[in-house]
């Protein structure tokens, strides 16, 4: 990997100094890759998407030296772009992420660009040699004990899903198969999701991977419907390691909690607020976690309950959660503070 002077040194230092990170900003690492654009239109679009994600990560509390953005032309934005998005640099960035993180930390790898599919292999097009799904699969082995969010928004990206599917890993692809070769719109909406208030479905002030996925999928569907076009992309998400992506994952992971969506719902690009610092606050936070768990359980059982019973129980739990949250907020200093979920 060839990083700009200063960045490389800074990165190494970060790894040494913050190896035992204690906040979310110090446990997350983000690798953004904008591939070969071809037309100026795509070069611009890819950069725009990567910039949105870069800024969202920074705004969410990820330290700038832990956000590595590689692009076709580093001179385009020397403030943000660390280096050229060559095969060698991309692999090196992932390797650095492994070095800079510890087991249990989060590593986000987001690929933006054109994909291709030939000879049974799917690739992301990069300046110079491309990288295939198998290349990434090998490289991500280094992150086996990290929680990895791997997003490929390129055309044909569906071919990556089965290859990269792994327990503890969220894999998002813009298409359902390698055969969907047309230009995709998913990436643009996925990037926008992290800046769009409307993507934050549960209004907790943060956008989870699942929320971003759902937002982008919805916007893509709306686009094709409004324009009366044939749908040429269908995004998938896999986070249970079963090599099967889901087009409509939910935060409960289905009725049994084993389907896709549950892990993705818990991962957010950025820091969560740390809960209380005293025993009473800890007790409230513990109570909140318990109530949240019971709420999820209730929602999972919804189909089997009468509406009246469900609503009564729902209200009981939601009132309890609201009361706990209001107490937590009061202790934290005001209503603007958001509770940990």
């Amino acid at each position, binding site marked *: 990997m060839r990083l700009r002077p200063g960045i490389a040194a800074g990165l190494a230092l970060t790894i040494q100094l913050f190896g035992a990170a204690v906040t979310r900003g110090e446990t997350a690492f983000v690798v953004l890759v904008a591939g070969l654009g071809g037309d100026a239109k795509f070069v611009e679009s890819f950069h725009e998407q990567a910039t949105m994600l870069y800024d969202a990560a920074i705004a969410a509390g990820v330290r700038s030296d832990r956000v590595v953005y590689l692009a076709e032309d580093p001179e385009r934005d020397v403030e943000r772009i660390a280096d050229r998005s060559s095969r060698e640099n991309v692999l090196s960035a992932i390797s650095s992420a492994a070095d800079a993180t510890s087991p249990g930390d989060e590593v986000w790898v987001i690929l933006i660009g054109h994909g291709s599919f030939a000879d049974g292999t799917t690739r992301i097009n990069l300046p110079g040699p491309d990288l295939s799904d198998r290349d990434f699969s090998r490289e991500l082995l280094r992150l086996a004990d990290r929680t990895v969010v791997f997003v490929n928004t390129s055309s044909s990206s569906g071919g990556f899903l089965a290859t990269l599917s792994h327990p503890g890993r969220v894999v998002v692809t813009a298409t359902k198969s390698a055969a969907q070769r047309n230009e995709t719109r998913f990436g643009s909406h996925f990037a926008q999701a992290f800046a769009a208030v409307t993507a934050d479905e549960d209004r907790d002030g943060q956008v989870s991977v699942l929320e971003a996925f*759902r*937002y982008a999928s919805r916007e893509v569907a709306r686009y094709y419907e409004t324009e*009366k076009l044939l749908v040429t992309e269908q995004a998938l998400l896999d986070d249970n390691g079963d090599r099967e992506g889901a087009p409509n994952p939910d935060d409960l992971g289905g009725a049994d909690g084993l389907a896709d969506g549950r892990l993705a719902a818990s991962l957010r690009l950025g820091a969560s607020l740390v809960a209380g610092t005293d025993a009473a606050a800890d007790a409230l936070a513990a109570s909140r976690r318990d109530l*949240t768990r019971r709420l999820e359980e209730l929602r999972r059982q919804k189909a089997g309950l009468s509406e009246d019973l469900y609503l009564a129980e729902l209200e009981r739990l*939601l009132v309890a959660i*609201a009361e706990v949250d209001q107490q937590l907020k009061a202790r934290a200093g005001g209503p603007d503070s958001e509770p940990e979920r």
Partner: protein
Amino acid sequence: MTAERPYRWRRVLARTLLVVAIASAAGTAFGQDPAELLRRGEVDRAIEVLTGADGRRDLAQDRLLVAAWLQRGEHQRVIDLVTPKLEEDRGALRAIGHGLGLALARSGRFELAEEVWRKVVQDAGPDDLMARIDLADLLEAGGRAEEAEQLASSLITAYNQRLELSSAELTAVARACQSLGRTDPQLFKDALKAYDEAIARDPENAEPRIRLAELFLEKYDSQQARESLAPVLTGGAPVLTGGAPVGTASPSAPALLAMARIQHFDGSPEALALTEKSLEANPSLVEARVFLAQLRLELEEHAVAVREAETALAGNPRSLEALSVLAAARYLQGDLEGFGAIRGQVLGQSPGYAGLYVRLAESCVQNRLYRQARDFAAQAVAVDPRSWSGWGELGMNQLRLGEIEEGRASLERAFAGDPYNVWNKNTLDLLDTFGDYRVSQAGRFELFIHQREAELLGPYIGALAEEAYQALAVRYRHRPPTPIRIEVYPSHEDFSVRTVGLAGLGALGVSFGTVLAIDSPSAREVGHFNWGSTLWHELTHTFTLGVTEHRIPRWLTEGLSVLEERRAREGWGDDVRPEFLQALRDGRLLGLREINNGFVRPSFPIQIALSYYQASLVCELIETEFGWPKMLELLDGYRAGENTEALFARVLGEDLDAFDRRFFAHLEHRFAGALPSFHAQAHDVHESDEAAPRPARPDPAELERLAAERPDDWRAQLGWGSVLFQRKEYDRAMVPLDRAKTLFPEFVGGGNPYRMLASAKRSAGDLAGAADELQHLVAHNELAWDEHRELAELLGELDRKSERAGVLERAIYIYPLDPQLHHELALLYGELGPAERRIRELRAVVALDPPSRAEALYDLAAALAEAGERGAARREVLRSLELAPGYDPAQRLLLDLVRDGTQ
């Protein structure tokens, strides 16, 4: 029947002898050879040659003459020629016996025909198979189905014995398969195969191509039918008649008739002319005469239909088809006694003939009598439980009457018997999707809306339908039975199948009386459909059909529906368009006697649309000049069975000619501003969406000159104004554009002056002026989505909130699926009130499943709480928190509501 070896030898020998005979007869010079003349389509010349000179002919020449006379419908001549010869010459039966049978059958002498054909079959000559299938058809029509089936089966046996069959014989086999397809639908495939073989055996034989086309059409596949028939019409394949090798290079009567049927199926106005042409070729072709009568029935010209049917019966008094169409005409005329007599005659002749009731059902549908159509179809399947077309008609009409499960069962039965009927299959496929629809009650209405859209559309559709019901009930002094079912289809193809069984219908809505179906706004491109005016239009049909017991003429029910649209909301309903004025100028608008043709068989592409508008103006004129009570009197008269001619004379005191004169004078007066420019110019506008005046890209200098010289020429003013606008010379452009607007204020098509004036005024900072222009535009254009949105934006900038809300309300009828529209309206009603409208709009936002659903639900809950609906608020806030348990404002609202003790 089992064929035996001697039978086969007899056939081969017989054919050989006949070929020798024909060859000997054809020894005349080329050009005078009657066989060749017939092949070239010169039937009359062939007859001349064959009957000229000394009048002596051998049997082969007689065979040619019989074929020629049959082509011209000269049945009696055939009978006169052949009957004595059968006595004199033992070979005559073999050569011309089958032709005699045809002449006898076609003139209604069925018993004699049967006798002759039986002899031909017994003789096992060259026309054996053709005689068998003709005999089978005759027996079938006479109610002797079992024997008919045995005969038809014997043709299949003959085919399976791998005899060397001619093209005509293979055609007979195909007909047999087709006939037996009623009991075993797989045989329809065999029919196709046999027709294909017949065509391959002799590509010049037109008969299998014509019959194949008719088979495809019977299954509602006009494209394949057209392809099958194409070689015949392009002169490549002559027609075999009566098995004789005669033909015509120009289309024969049956070919023309088949084409007429295809054109009719595809909605082309050429059907009528083609049928008449077919009758010119063979005036005795009963099928053509019957079809002509059917076409007249569709046009609601019942008396003309009666005449055509009677003419057909003069040639063949026992034609079941002709009797059936006559029965339908009598029924539609209200002559129940005459109808009963004919029905008795048909059933006496053939007690199991379901065709009578199928024809009655079809004719009733064409005249919007769906209940009667259902009842006739039920009788069809009662007399013949294997009448698959009867089951199909029954099912379709049950569906039209809202009897969904019964309709499905009938169609399943039809499909089981005839799985190749596209109409039935499409409809069953559609019915399979009905589980995706939500049925809900909204006052007097049963709403059937796709579950994806039901929450959003239901409240708007229910409210508008209720408003329409109340208004129309007062106006028509009639209250249709409820519930009225409204079906809304998010796919236009599904709507089309629901309506006509096939995709591709151009309409937007349909009313079967108390069952309506319309496109959902999501089925159409934004700006091409106003669901509100469409619903109002269709509901008006419910009233006008109801008040006349479905006996209202097509033009009147459509005219009243458009008129009621215009009365319901400003800008709704058709408005005058340049093409209408052109048609007025050219005398192409039809008088009242013919106006139905403009709906049913348009003679130019836009005639249907113009007819709707014209009919609405007729209704408007009756109301303004004679008074609304006279309109109600007319409707009463139609219910009583009176016809238009008599009613206008009795109620309005004017015959139709006088009324037409009054109407056209009214049009000249009403459009006096715009008409002069249409009289002055040679070039026309052809499509409304392309209606910007484009006089062959005129020179701007010429336009400037014309505009100066002709201040009353709308086109010149608009053309010159457009040039100036495009040059951005806005101040100068306003003068001719204003003038164009004054001359033809209703013109709101592409390139209209309002749009340009609004832009010019907006760029000059005159927001109020721009808003005025757009107000005028939307007052005439119910589809202008962009202009409604722009006007709303302008009114927002001008802080004219109430007007803005009004414009956005109108926009809902164009495209209610825009979340922003509802969001803006909710904010406006939050300020202006009333609370229930704010709540309605917030519900719409929720129904559109916005990404920020939790927030939308909270907004709704908050509005409900403010409006005092705290119970509903509590439910909505729970839905919000279910998605976002930590959402602070929603938590606070919930706690507030819980503390308040709201249930």
